[in-house]
């Protein structure tokens, strides 16, 4: 199949191969400004990528501003009773979210041109087939392979995959939309009626859970559609259009308006992002512009029944839509701002208009983009070029069987197999794109080979130990050295060796921790000594004192600290035992005193029991 790739398609480029154009200043920027639009993103379309670096900067700035504000608010709240909070409590917030996610596919939705990821560095207008540039005489060719990641997403979100779905044209004029319409699935989406379950660990506030272990948010539908081109502004008034992204497959996931707090909304998007990544439906998340969200926000007095409805949910207050949110912070803050705006309007006796609003990072208020009267009539019509999409149940069944593990299933498995707590399992599974979990699994495998299958260490015990070392010891080192997981040079083998030595009582865990730090800080280019070598060289091997030695050491220290012993006699505290243990370890030669043994001896010499404050 031929797929002519066009070199350049640019608004003001003179190098276009098929339609020479002289550079000409565009003053559409002014037009956009005059209508209250920011430059760049299409006012009608969704989705526009803010460059990552800029985005992160803005986010950091916003967070800083946010924390400042928060502090100021806290101060103010300390002086005055939190009236705003009290008001919020009497209003019920309802949020529905539309998430646009870039599918992980090799080619575009309707052409064989390569689908570059959002962070791709491909030259502008190089991944463009004739259809992507909307050349006359071209027709879309549905690329079947793009369906697979979309289906995986739909299955992972527990949707009913529709046997027949269709393609519709959504019309609006904008230069990021070459055909003058976007092909989407308006009348018949390919997936419907899914659900997403969230728990406290997912970031859902207690009030939302309302005593339950989890909440369920309905997914109304998922549809496939085309992404838009990318526009870059070259001030003062020149715009360049890059069609590389035009026609990239997206899925739009629409939740039911069943979300009732800003935090839960952010949690929903975060969870959906995790699910999409886990089933390889998407490669890049929000942080790289691979995911964008629009939120529908409405409020009403608690217990009231409004007359508005959407997505089949009735009795809601009038909603507004906030478009194009590209970070979790933005989602949460935009909803807070819009909720507060709506409440204050209603309190003042005003009426909420059904309108589209925008939000920029760091802003305290959403801004009106267009009202109902300015609403674009998209003139949806079925695309007569494209036959209906028919999806066989055998394909769905096959994908279901081969679906990669979902985040919730991973957490459950990590808890069960490796004995981690729910919180630790969730943390380790979600950190570093699953790298830490892989590290854990590899280390546990090496460790259980080291300590021997016949040992009395259960897998859960090994797993829990390894989990602690990875999250807390290694994690601590990474934090204090201000590096990232990717920079971590301690190999799975090294960690397994260290832990094996501890478990087999060859070294103390204090020694192991020191060695871990040594390995972590070891210069990258020099030869790495093995754990055994480090133990040997440092003469760190545990040479346990004899029973008499322990008793002698303990008695020595107790004799020196009689005041303490006496003062404590009335109500013995465990902490005192541990103080003596610490003294023993410090005084004993390195690698000779084990804390457990020392404690045993201290207790027996002092005649105190295991339980706190009880005489033997």
């Amino acid at each position: 199949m031929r797929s002519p790739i066009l070199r350049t398609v640019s608004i003001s480029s003179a190098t276009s191969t098929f339609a020479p154009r002289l550079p000409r200043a565009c003053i559409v920027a002014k037009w956009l400004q005059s209508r209250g639009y920011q430059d760049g993103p299409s006012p009608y379309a969704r989705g526009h990528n803010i460059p990552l670096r800029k985005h992160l900067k803005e986010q950091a700035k916003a967070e800083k501003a946010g924390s400042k504000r928060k502090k100021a608010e806290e101060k103010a709240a300390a002086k005055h009773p939190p009236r705003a909070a009290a008001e919020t409590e009497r209003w019920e917030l309802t949020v529905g979210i539309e998430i646009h996610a870039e599918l992980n596919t090799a080619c575009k939705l309707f052409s064989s041109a390569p689908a570059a990821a959002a962070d791709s560095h491909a030259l502008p207008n190089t991944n463009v087939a004739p259809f992507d540039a909307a050349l006359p005489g071209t027709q879309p060719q549905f690329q079947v392979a793009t369906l697979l990641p979309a289906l995986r997403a739909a299955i992972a979100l527990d949707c009913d995959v529709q046997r027949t779905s269709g393609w519709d044209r959504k019309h609006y004029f904008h230069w990021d939309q070459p055909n003058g319409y976007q092909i989407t699935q308006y009348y018949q989406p390919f997936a419907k009626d899914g659900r997403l379950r969230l728990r406290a660990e997912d970031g859902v506030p207690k009030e939302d859970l309302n005593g339950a272990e989890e909440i369920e948010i309905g997914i109304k539908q998922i549809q496939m559609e085309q992404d838009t081109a990318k526009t870059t502004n070259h001030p003062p008034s020149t715009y360049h259009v890059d069609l590389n992204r035009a026609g990239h497959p997206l899925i739009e996931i629409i939740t039911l308006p069943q979300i009732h707090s800003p935090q839960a909304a952010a949690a929903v998007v975060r969870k959906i992002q995790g699910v999409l990544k886990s089933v390889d439906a998407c490669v890049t998340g929000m942080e790289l512009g691979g995911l964008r969200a629009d939120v529908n926000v409405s409020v009403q007095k608690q217990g009231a029944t409004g007359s508005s409805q959407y997505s089949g949910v009735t009795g809601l207050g009038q909603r507004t839509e906030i478009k194009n949110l590209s970070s979790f912070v933005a989602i949460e803050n935009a909803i807070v701002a819009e909720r507060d705006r709506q409440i204050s309007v209603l309190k003042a006796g005003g009426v909420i208009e059904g309108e589209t609003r925008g939000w920029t990072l760091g802003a305290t208020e959403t801004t009106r983009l267009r009202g109902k009267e300015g609403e674009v009539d998209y003139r949806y019509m079925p695309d007569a070029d494209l036959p209906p999409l028919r999806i066989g149940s055998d394909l769905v069944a096959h994908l279901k069987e081969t679906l990669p593990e979902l985040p919730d299933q991973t957490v459950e498995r990590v808890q069960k197999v490796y004995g981690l707590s729910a919180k630790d399992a969730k943390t380790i599974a979600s950190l570093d794109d699953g790298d830490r979990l892989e590290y854990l699994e590899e280390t546990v495998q090496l460790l259980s080979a080291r300590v021997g299958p016949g040992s009395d260490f259960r897998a859960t015990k090994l797993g829990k130990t390894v989990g602690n070392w990875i999250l807390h010891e290694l994690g601590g080192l990474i934090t204090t050295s201000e590096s990232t997981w990717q920079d971590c040079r301690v190999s799975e083998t090294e960690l397994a060796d260290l832990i094996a030595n501890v478990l087999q009582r060859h070294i103390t865990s204090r020694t192991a921790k020191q060695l871990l730090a040594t390995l972590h800080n070891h210069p990258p280019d020099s030869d790495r000594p093995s754990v055994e070598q480090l133990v040997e060289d440092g003469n760190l091997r545990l040479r346990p004192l004899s029973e008499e030695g322990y008793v002698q050491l303990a008695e020595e220290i107790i004799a020196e600290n009689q005041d303490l012993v006496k003062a404590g006699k009335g109500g013995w505290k465990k902490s005192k035992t541990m103080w003596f243990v610490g003294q023993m370890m410090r005084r004993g030669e390195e690698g000779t005193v084990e804390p457990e043994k020392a404690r045993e001896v201290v207790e027996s010499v002092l005649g105190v029991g295991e339980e706190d404050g009880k005489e033997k």
Partner: protein
Amino acid sequence: MVFLNNASRNTHLRPYSSSNTNAIINAAAEPPPPTQSHPNGSLAGKSIAIKDNILTTATPTTAASRALHNYPSPFPATVITLLQQHGAYISSKTNLDEFGMGSHTQSSFHGPAISPFSRNGVPLTPGGSSGGSAVAVAEGKAWAALGTDTGGSVRLPAAYCGVVGFKPSYGCVSRWGVVAYANSMDTVGVLARTVGDARKVFGVLDVYDERDPTSLLPSVRQRIRSKRSSTAGRGKKMRIGVPTSYLTTSISPAVRAAYASTLTRLQAAGHTLIPIGLPTSKLALSTYYILAPAEASSNLAKYDGIRYGYRTSGPDARPKEDPPLPFYAATRGEAFGDEVRRRILLGAYTLSSEAMHNYFIQAQKIRRLVSRDFDAVFALPHPLHEDTAQRPAPLPSDENKEDGKGKVDIILTPTTPTLPPTLSEIAQQSALEHYMNDVFTVPASLACLPALSVPVPLPAEVREGMEEGDVSTVGVQVIGQLGDDEGVLGAGEVVEGLW
């Protein structure tokens, strides 16, 4: 031929025609191939004129619109490649109504085309929108020509210019490289002097093309071949459906006489005439003029002046106006002619959320009924209906009581209700009156059926009262079941052979 000598001049977009019919807007679209290339091709050495909404790489393709003024396509249409592979020579690009929207080839950016025929010294309309292709064939400037037919744009000019015009079943011929007007009905058709010539060209084009998503799949083509009508065609006695409802429409006496004499001769030749009811057909024209503009408004949205084509001069946007206008409005306002603008506006309206249900949706329903009417009378089953054993239930209509259900091989109608009017007559007509020319051609377009216009002589008594330069033929239209293109061509040859 004179114009071949001028090929080397490559006069871009300058009307060129020996008789000044303005049929040809770009002579010598392709250089003549060396005689030895494809010497055995079925179209070896044949000159074929191409309607200028079909993309060629050797010359610009304009669709007769300022929007595509001098547009150079980076790729050729599939039909162009196929013709060349079979030895044909693309001799010229021909004039048309802008984007194929019109019935008289008067709404062209290159100026109107005229018929070689005249009445009282006034030229007649060549018909449209493939008027340039019809005139090129009628004048012998090309052995055959390609046109496009969305609602009758090949059949109507063929009938008005006295040539054969064939609109294949939708999906037989690739639309890749054909500038879209109403993509659910757009077809590439053939204009030729005989049905046999049209069949030769169609035979080359009738192949699956994966680049056209509505191209009939090889499996469907195979199914069609296996069930092809064995009754239609030369030497076979046909059962010919005569739609009685069509005859009540105001048909001019000349056309009525020619049509009647055709029916008489067919009956005399042993074919059976069967009166049929096509009750929904009377709604077809209004249905077509809702659906086609709706699709046009969508398909023409891409002409925004950003990537190619015409862009307004001066400032790109007018931000100070109230409401402020982006440059699209100026670009598109200047790029499109009256008829295109009318249809875009019509289409934008019928698709708007307030009008959608009353217009677009209703029209889609009627389109289905029109299809069902046809399906009910043909003996051949519809190859795309999954269960071919199940015929659609008859509609509760009086006309439906007529005999002829499931018994007809082909349907015969006039192609147009009247003889071609003069240019001065059409200049006084409203847009609605122009649309009336399509009343007999749009039903087959809505139903995606193959349809052929064959010229039949005017009866001597009618012709006697007319001038020397006036037309001497009338087009009659053969319609067949979807996929039965061969049956339609065969029937056309039968009609052709009656005189």
